[in-house]
């Protein structure tokens, strides 16, 4: 009797496991070939006319007087609408991670951000407190400052290497135990407005013009997928507001330190963003069909 019961339990477990597997299978996309990168594209959303998967693999962000190289890949994914006046609105990725939060180490860490020992006593105390903390590294993470549909993309400008190709309201999250969890440069009310181009910038001084690149085009899947490698989106004409929320309850003390050391707020012409990477685009319908044709 006991043996029989064990067998029933085992069978039931096996059935449950199989059912779970089957459900998992039906819920996940079955994209193949060059379409596999569009797993998180909202291709069933009627608003999404195209799917995009763009990985920034290198480049740098100069915020005030701090240069942060991009060493960890940043992914921008989701869909975008049909263009109106040459610009499309981004549609959020199905997993909600439209812009991946890839932390970039700030060279020098906090030592590179906080002032030296000639600072006032309170600041010195803070520095001491800080350096007693073994976690001195600081990460900077690019995040969206506004809803995804406020990110605008012009595929025409992206390809033609002219005018603005990507408008992105952003904020930089500075992370370190000392800085707390809410240390940002930029916010939803005062975002860093990146207006990236694959063409040539015309920033105010002291920055000078820099050139982006549309990259090398390649059509895949019989013209259904377009991949551009080595593209370079640049903007060095944006302004950055002062940091806020740094140091938690001590923010009234820490914010000015961070601002003084980074050089914030930084006017237009003092900041730079260079994003180098690979972008893959397809129509939402092509992605949907690829999914349907590969059960």
């Amino acid at each position: 009797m006991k043996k029989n019961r064990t067998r029933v339990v085992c069978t039931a477990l096996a059935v449950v496991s199989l059912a779970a597997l089957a459900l998992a299978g039906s819920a996940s996309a079955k994209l193949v070939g060059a379409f596999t990168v569009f797993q998180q594209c909202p291709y069933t959303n009627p608003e999404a006319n195209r799917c995009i998967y763009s990985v920034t693999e290198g480049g740098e962000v100069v915020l005030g007087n701090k240069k942060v190289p991009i060493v960890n890949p940043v992914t921008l994914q989701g869909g975008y609408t049909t263009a109106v006046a040459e610009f499309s609105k981004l549609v959020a990725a199905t997993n909600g991670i439209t812009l991946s939060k890839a932390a970039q180490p700030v060279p020098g860490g906090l030592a590179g951000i906080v002032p030296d020992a000639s600072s006032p006593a309170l600041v010195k105390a803070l520095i001491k407190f800080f350096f007693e903390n073994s976690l001195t590294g600081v990460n900077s993470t690019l995040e969206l400052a506004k809803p995804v549909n406020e990110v605008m993309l012009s595929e025409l400008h992206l390809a033609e290497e002219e005018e603005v190709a990507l408008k992105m309201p952003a904020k930089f999250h500075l992370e370190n135990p000392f800085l707390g969890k809410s240390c940002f440069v930029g916010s939803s009310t005062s975002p860093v407005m990146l207006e990236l181009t694959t063409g040539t910038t015309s920033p105010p001084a002291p920055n000078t013009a820099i050139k982006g690149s549309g990259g090398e085009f390649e059509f895949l899947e019989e013209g259904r997928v377009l991949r551009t490698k080595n593209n370079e989106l640049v903007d060095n004409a944006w302004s950055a507001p002062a940091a806020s929320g740094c140091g938690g309850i001590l923010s009234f003390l820490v914010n000015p330190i961070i601002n003084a050391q980074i050089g914030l707020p930084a006017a237009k012409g003092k900041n730079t963003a260079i994003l180098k990477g690979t972008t893959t685009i397809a129509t939402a319908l092509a992605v949907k069909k690829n999914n349907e044709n590969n059960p």
Partner: protein
Amino acid sequence: MKRKATSVFGTVALVALVISAVFAGSAGASPVWKFNGTELSGSEVVVGGALESSMTIPGLTTKCANFLYKLKVSNSAGLGKGEVTEVPLYNCTTNSAACTVKTIAAESLPWLSKLSTVSAKNYIVIEGVKVAILYAGEECVLGGTLVTVKGSAGGLVDNTVETATFNSTTLTATGTELKALGQKIEWNGVFPTEAFEWHREQALTVS
């Protein structure tokens, strides 16, 4: 005295000739349009249709079964010139199952042209080329996108078969390029040249 003066004059003339020959050589000879071996005076209209023609961005080739042109040619100051006044394009397709060509049209006509000689070969160089292509197809990644081909193109003139051939070699030789979507594109085309007005059925050569 008179003989000496003649001798000096002759030497000067010879030196001048040599110098002018050297300059002509370094600048490249100036080829002109000729019909039945005679340099064209006035103007002539040359027409033709591509024997074959295709434009390729890596992975996507666009072909037109009917790629016609009308070129008004003339010689000016010892140099062959011209104006491409009409380029009707019909029956265009792509090598993609997903993409079709909805519309295609030459823009900003006339396109100016001139003859030039590079490494002893004669070329026709067309400047200000502009062709707008609207691709279609629900699954085509360029569907609904207006792609504009812009730039200049140099084609090798072959007097023996009376054609102008455009390909990556001739574009490189003439220092010309065509771009679309910010990319340098490949254009291959062989165009017969035939007089349409006063010199109809006469051999058209460039030298």
